[in-house]
């Protein structure tokens, strides 16, 4: 590579690099400094180093572990449901989409709505007097649960998240299903494979990489859930719906414990790196797409 083009290359990535240093690198350094300091809003410019006691405080806080457990459980459950539902819809509805591709637009619409607004919408829809869901449940079954109460909040949130993001799984898995060459299916059909066997032995293995990617993207997104949770229940339901993101937000804005909030952030960062490391390891071993 000639010297000038290497120089030009560096010049072209310089603005983006500078931007990332300012808005990611610098905050990360602040995160690290504040996480090992005693610091309040008054002495924000003069953090006093105190070692790892903020980390110890976070690790000793049962609410921290409750939030971590909530995020993990929530992320795993919604991603599994979304992938299964998305896969089922993608395969079953494929003939419709093949003839009329625009139909999929109607199923993509939920993704266009802000999750925060979806949370607000459910406050209306699930409201005991003016909500449509309690109205119809009462009409049909004569009863409805306290959707946002302690017993039901988790199920409600799983449903809300699943209904909004199953379309993502549907979209990715549909394009992966549609990309399977007809030749492959014809060859398999000649060998006598059809129906369920064709799907299990031919389609499913070919779609496996897409299924894996969809699962990981959905897991990562729902693990850090904040918006719809915050607007729908906030810290409600007796704290049983506090995700990691909500925990950090509250430690900072409600409690004002900067050190704790930042230490929890760093622990979350480490956890994300572990997840990424696992994902990269798994995808590296798999065949390329």
């Amino acid at each position, binding site marked *: 590579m000639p010297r000038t083009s290497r120089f030009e290359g560096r010049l072209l990535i310089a603005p983006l690099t500078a931007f990332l240093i300012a808005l990611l690198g610098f*905050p990360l350094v602040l995160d690290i400094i504040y996480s090992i300091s005693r610091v309040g809003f008054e002495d924000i410019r003069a953090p006093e180093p105190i070692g790892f006691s903020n980390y110890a405080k976070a690790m000793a806080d049962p609410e921290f572990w409750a939030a971590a457990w909530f995020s993990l459980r929530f992320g795993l459950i919604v991603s599994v449901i979304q992938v299964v539902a998305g896969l089922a819809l993608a395969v079953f509805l494929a003939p419709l989409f093949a003839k009329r591709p625009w139909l999929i637009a109607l*199923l993509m619409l939920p993704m266009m709505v802000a999750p925060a607004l979806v949370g607000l*919408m459910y406050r209306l829809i699930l409201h005991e007097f003016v909500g449509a869901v309690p109205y119809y449940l009462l009409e049909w079954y004569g009863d409805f649960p306290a959707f946002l109460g302690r017993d039901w909040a988790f199920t409600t949130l799983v449903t809300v998240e699943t209904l909004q993001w199953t*379309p993502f799984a549907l979209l990715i898995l549909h394009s992966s299903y549609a990309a399977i060459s007809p030749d492959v299916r014809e060859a398999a059909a000649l060998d006598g494979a059809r129906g369920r066997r064709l799907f299990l032995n031919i389609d499913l293995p070919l779609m496996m990489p897409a299924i894996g990617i969809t699962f990981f993207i959905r897991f990562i997104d729902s693990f850090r859930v904040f918006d719809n949770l915050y607007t729908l229940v906030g810290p409600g339901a007796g704290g049983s719906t506090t995700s990691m993101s909500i925990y950090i937000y509250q430690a900072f804005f409600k409690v004002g414990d900067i050190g704790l909030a930042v230490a929890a952030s760093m622990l979350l960062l480490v956890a994300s790196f572990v997840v990424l490391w696992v994902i990269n390891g798994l995808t590296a071993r798999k065949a390329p797409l």
Partner: protein
Amino acid sequence: MRKPLVNALRWLVFIAAVVILNFPVIATLVTSLKSEAEIMTNASLFIEAPTLDNYAAVFAMADRFDILHFLTNSLVASLIGSVLAIALAFPAAYAMARFGAGRSWLLPLAVNLRAVPLIIFAIPIYLMYQQVGLLDTRFGLALILCLVNVPLVLVLFASSIADLPLEIEEAGRVDGAGTLRLLVYVVAPMSLNVVAASSVLAFIYSWNEFLFGLMLTTNSATPVSVGASFFFAASGGGVRWGVAAAVMILATLPPLILGLLMYRQIGRSMTAGAVKG
């Protein structure tokens, strides 16, 4: 014999999926078109006397909660955020694809950034903004929206530029065009499709962003994703559900319409972003 039956079942499943998945928007739209009195007596999905009163009421309370102000904030911040993300990512993606600059660290960094919960950086960014006076400004919010969008835009550009034929650029070089000139007059025009598709997606993501809007703004720059909840408390006591519903529809309409018009580009970008990342 069985074929038409299965086909009918497919349509049934499709229609059920459309209604269930879009239920929040449908039910909210229905509520927004009922009168305040009807909302309290009729919670069903059928409207007895459709009215636009709630929408009129939303605009009538502009002195306390100005929906146009929130919508404008979202529009301005999202536009700046998306354009800036493209302006930063486009040359960088070109440098990666053609010169290999930063391909070994910048691209993986950006890709992995999508997997990192951004709340990790939210607190130091809040403290930084406090010091430099960017709190509650549209530009401050736009910078964050740009940060949110950069990974996806970079991945999309990097893969699409790598697919462009090299010959045209080489011909340009022979004619004496420099890199900047090539970028503006040759590579950019050939990439218009990707630029359009990724800017629509970036705009929608920006419009829908909530966490940083909540943390970094108080009023002057509050985006509509955050401002919408203000209307829930607008009447002091109980929620005026009709007004709240109308606000939510107004806040949702822009990305919804974009999504309907550009579903093809959005779908392609989402798929490419997922697979290439």
